[in-house]
Structures are given as C-alpha cells and as structure tokens.
C-alpha cells in the first residue's frame, strides 16, 4: 500500500481499522470470559462509566446541533438582508448545512509546509473538545442532565476556557501572521471576558448557595418573576455581553475578523480541520445560550405554572390484542382520510401524490398529537421543550446581532471589559451580598 500517497486522515484510518477489528474480537472474548467481573467493576465505579457514556452522547448530539445552528444563521441573516438564502436542498434549504458538512469532509485536508504539524493537527480537536464537553452540565430538564456536577458552573467556565488554548495553538502553529494575530486576539479577549463572566454569576451563587446548574434552575421554580434575569438584571446584561465575547460572536468576533485578519486563527486550515473550528463556534453559541437560559431564564421551568392535572389516561393494557391492530390500521386509515380530500380537491393531483401528501399530513398530525400528549402527560418533555424554546430564542438573538452590528475594535473591546464590565460585576456582587446580609435569602 502506498503509505506516502495517503492523506493524514487516510493514514489514521489505515491504522485504525485493523486495530478496531482486533480490539473488537478481543473485547468479545473478554466479555465472554470475565463478563461477570466486568459487570461488577462497572457497578463499582458507575460515575466514570456514566461520564464516558455521557461524553459520547453529547459528542453525537453536538454535530446535528451545529448543523441546525449553521442553517439558522444562513437563513435568518439572509432574510434580514432581504435575501431568500438557502432554498434548494431540502425543504427551505434545511439540508444545506449538512451538505456543507459533507463538502468540508470531502475537501482536501492540506497541511501547509513549515507549520508545526502536531500542534497544528491537535488544535481543532482541542477546540471542539472544549466546546462539546461543556454540554455535559447543561440541565436540559431535571431528569435530563447528563452530569449533574455539584460544581457544574465552575466546570463550565474551566472547560470553556480551554478552547482558548486550542485557538492559541492554532494561531501559533500556523506559521502565518494573520493566524498569530488572531490567536493572540482570541486569548486576550477570552482572558479579559472570563473575569466578568465568572463574577457576574457570583451574585446568583450567593443567592442560591450552590454551583450546580440543576439546583440553580430549581431555585428559579415558580412564575417567571422568580427568574434571575428579573432578580439580577445587571448580572444578566454583563453575562450576556460576556458570553457573546466568549463565543466569538459579532460584535466581538475579533479573533476571526475577516476584514482585518483574513480568517484569524483558521487562516491556514482547510477541509475538516476548519470544519471543526466552524462547528465548535456554533456549538459554543448553543451552549452559551443554553447556559444563559438555565442561569437567568429559569431553564426548564415554564413561565407560568398551569396545573391542568389531566384526567385523560389511556390505559393501553385494556386494549389487549387491539393495540397492535390499531397500530397497524391507524396509519393506513389516517393516510386515506387525509388523502381523499386532497385528491378530490383538484383533478390535476394524481392519486399517488395525494397518498404521499396524506401520509405526510397524517405523520405530522399524529406526531403533533403524540407531542402534545407527551407535553401534557410527561413533565420531562414539557420542561425540555421549554428549555429549547428559551435557548433557541437566545440563539436567534445572537444571529440577529450578527446580522445587525458592526465589529468593535479590539482595544475598545478590552477597555469595555476592564473599565465597565468588571466594576459593574463587582458592584453587583457587593449589592447582592448586602441584600443577602440584610434580608437573608
């Protein structure tokens, strides 16, 4: 096999595949022999296993999230520009970002000469790792927190800060002055905005007395007046500005300011390595929005608690054998029911078209029905939906800002952080502390 004719990715695969095969065989053998012992070990240290599983799961969900956000950005900014935006691939161009991802995968992954190859190769991995590992502590719902750390908030800031290391690595190893400037800008910006970001939530920590996100969310239970955005408005503003800078979003996207330093730290990257940077940015946007909604917008709490204790209780077991019958017949009947009016509506519509349309409508309707049923019957689903609504509202705000605002200059940026945000956050901390001293929690 012509080893030197392979791209780095190809070499990795060539090494990985046999290793995986052998490893798989070995694992089966081991499971067959020491199955019981392994089970015992897993039972012994469950948290580690859970951590590993959760990491894999978050990694798997982070990619579609990135795709969704990229599509949202393309479409929303296009609509704000009085354009239509992606509309060719998929319904309203919804698959466009996926195709972009495939394109990036298929592009040549070029390593320029005279770059520091190991660092250059590692940097995107570090950035992406840092961004999706923070997903672990996001409390999607009370029961849907992958890792309910006691120090969740601290973990978030720590791991989130790691991404700067990746950016610096990329900027330094690229052997390009634009990359160098971009990396240094990213580092300076992140360092100066970590501080107000961390300090702004101290007030909330004082109020709740905990650092774990599920507990902070639980502390905002009740009506929307209990949300911390109303109890700590100053902290909310500081936090919002700081996470905007954290996620390198306009107007604070100096790290990859393409009008000044061509693409910043990502100038020399191509193919999937650039794709990692790209995805990491959008995963970051999702994460900071989720964090904001968890910390300030009451997370998974509905704005107003309406207790419609539903009496609709479908006892599936009562149906007995009828259940599979219904499951088999219902789609057909529903499809025909929806297809018939369409078919009668216009003579130009052929039968099969009507059937397809009917099936789709039936699918939509039944999904909606099941969703509503779940929303009403299952509290986790309801809270998850509330959480996602808030998060995506914030994501929309970020994209909206990107569509509107020009970029701030780097020195004005730093001055703003050190001269305004830092004193304000300290002021907020003292005010909260006094209030707690006087009035108690």
């Amino acid at each position, binding site marked *: 096999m012509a080893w030197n004719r392979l791209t780095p990715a190809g070499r990795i695969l060539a090494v990985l595949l046999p290793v995986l095969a052998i490893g798989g065989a070995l694992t089966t053998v081991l499971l067959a022999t020491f199955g019981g012992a392994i089970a015992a070990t897993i039972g012994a240290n469950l948290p580690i296993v859970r951590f590993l599983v959760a990491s894999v799961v978050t990694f798997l969900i982070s990619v579609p999230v990135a795709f969704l956000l990229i599509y949202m950005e393309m479409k*929303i900014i296009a*609509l*704000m*520009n*009085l*354009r*239509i935006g992606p509309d060719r691939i998929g319904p309203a161009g919804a698959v466009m970002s996926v195709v972009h991802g495939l394109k990036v995968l298929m592009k040549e992954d070029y390593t320029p000469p005279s770059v520091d190859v190991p660092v250059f190769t590692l940097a995107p991995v570090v950035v992406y790792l840092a961004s999706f590992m923070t997903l672990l502590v996001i409390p999607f719902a009370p029961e849907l927190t992958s890792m309910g750390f006691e120090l969740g908030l601290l973990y978030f800031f720590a791991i989130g800060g790691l991404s700067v290391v990746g950016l610096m690595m990329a900027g330094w190893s690229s052997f390009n002055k634009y990359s160098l400037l971009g990396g240094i800008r990213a580092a300076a910006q992140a360092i100066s905005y970590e501080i107000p970001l961390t300090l702004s939530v101290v007030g909330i920590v004082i109020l709740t007395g905990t650092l774990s996100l599920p507990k902070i969310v639980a502390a905002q239970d009740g009506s929307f007046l209990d949300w911390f955005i109303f109890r700590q408005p100053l902290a909310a503003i500081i936090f919002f500005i700081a996470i905007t800078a954290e996620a390198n979003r306009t107007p604070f996207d100096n790290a990859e300011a393409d009008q000044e330093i061509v693409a910043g730290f990502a100038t020399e990257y191509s193919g999937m390595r650039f794709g990692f940077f790209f995805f990491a940015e959008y995963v970051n946007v999702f994460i900071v929005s989720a964090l904001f909604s968890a910390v300030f917008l009451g997370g998974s709490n509905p704005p107003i608690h309406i207790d419609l204790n539903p009496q609709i209780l479908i006892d599936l077991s009562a149906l007995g054998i009828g259940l599979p019958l219904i499951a088999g017949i219902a789609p057909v009947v529903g499809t025909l029911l929806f297809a018939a009016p369409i078919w009668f509506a216009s003579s130009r519509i052929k039968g099969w078209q009507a059937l397809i349309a009917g099936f789709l409508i039936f699918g939509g309707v039944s999904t909606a029905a099941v969703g509503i049923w779940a929303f009403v019957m299952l509290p986790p689903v309801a809270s998850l939906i509330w959480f996602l609504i808030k998060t995506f509202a914030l994501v929309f705000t970020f994209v*909206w*800002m990107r*569509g*509107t*605002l020009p970029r701030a200059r780097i020195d004005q940026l730093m001055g703003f952080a050190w001269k305004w945000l830092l004193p304000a956050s300290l002021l907020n901390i003292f005010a909260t502390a006094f209030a707690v001293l006087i009035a108690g929690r």
Partner: protein
Amino acid sequence: MPRIPGSGLLSGMRLTLTRFFQPKRTVMYPEVKPDIAPRNRGRLELVTDEHGTLKCETCFQCAQACPIECIDMGGIDTKGRFAVHWGPAEQYAERREESAIRRSGRTVSDAAAATGTTINTAKVDEILEAHDYDPHHMLAILEEIQAAYGYLPVDALKRVSRATGAWYAMVYGTATFYKHLAFEPGVTRSIAVCRCANCLVSGAGSVMGTLSYEFGTEFGRAIPWSNLRLESLPSHLPDAPSPLVVIDGEPQRDLSAKNAASWAAALAGRYAA
C-alpha cells in the same frame, strides 16, 4: 443631546427585525431570467439565412469598428490566396508583419510608408491623378492598376490607400471581392483535365476528383500554397489519350483511371516540395 447608550444599537436591531419580515428581493435566477434592455449592445450574433449558411462575408467592418478588439475574425478571401485574420496581436503573429496594415483599420501611416516600396509607383500616381484621388472610383482605379502592372502589387494598394485616404482594409476588400482582380502575377502553371465525353467515360471524373482532393481546391481555382491552377480543357486535343491531363501545356501519357490516385499524390508531393 444625551442619548441612552445602546439605543442606537437597539434601533438598528429593530430595523433589521422589520426587514426580516419584509418581502424579499432575490431574483430566482435560473427560473426567472433578468430582462435585457432593448438598447443592449452586449450580444454579438452571426446571422444565418434560411438555408442555415452564414450571411457574414468577412468584410471585417465590425471588427474594425470594435474599439477594444473583442471581435476576432478569420477567413479566406475569394481568391483563396490570403488567409485573413482580425484578432488580438498576441494570438496572431502575422499581425506584426506587413499584412497587419490590411487589418489595422485605418489608412497606411507614414511609418509604414517610410519603409519604401518594391515597385515604381509612378503609374499608380498617374492613374490616381486621372481619377482625382477619389476613393469612390476604387474599382476603376484597381482595374487600371492591374491593367498597368498585370496584377495588383501590395505596395500599389498601400499607395492607393494612402493617397485616397480610404482604409487599407476597404481597398483590400474591394481587390479581393472581384474575381478578375489578381494579387499575383498571372498564373504560370496549370493542370488541365479534358472533360469531353470520351475522357469522362474513361475516368476523367475520378482523376479530377483525386486531383482536387490532393491539392485541396476546386477546379477553376488557384491552389492556396502555390501559383498553380486546376483547369478543365475546353476541347480534346488531337491524337491524345484518354483520360487527358495537360500539365503546363504538355499532355501526360502515362496516366489511366487505375493509377490516377497514386499519380496525383506524387504530383501533389512534387509541387508541395
């Protein structure tokens, strides 16, 4: 006046949000073609007649008028003698040679005239004087020049263009349009084939076909790369074989319909060499 910090940003956000819901201005290009203004001059088009043959007769006037020389034309003039090009200089080296004047789209300049002539243009001047240097008499002038010199020397054409102020390209176009005007001294060599019934029966047609194929021209035309002409004899010569082929006046004896092809090939090779 004092303004709340950030109010400008917020007003801008409001504006973008309103535009977010406004009708969009995109032109869905492949489906919706943009309308081309009736006055558009951007499209060059070669017109064909109902038989599908091009109406363009390579008069080069469009290419002369094009200021930025985006029109690139090539053609063989009616004499089959000169391959004519109009195109960017870096593509056609011959444009830097004398024939470039023909395409320069203006009268011959002092610089080009200063290179001197190879002929004595006194007679040309007399003819021009007789015609009062009137470019409208171009055909008559050229005919008289040919009568005087036996053909049309290029230097004479340059002189005419210079004296009358007509573009050289126009003079050249007139000279090449009429069949009876020649650019080379009269045809010296000719291959003549007899077309009487006897010869045709004995295969003169195939001989003519192979000849015209080998020399790449038709009968009655000069051959582009030489001053050789393919002609057909008016009548059969006495005591001559059939098929009869006469080269520069003497009949060919060793020829028949069988070896016509190889013989013509050999002939062509001899002339090409």
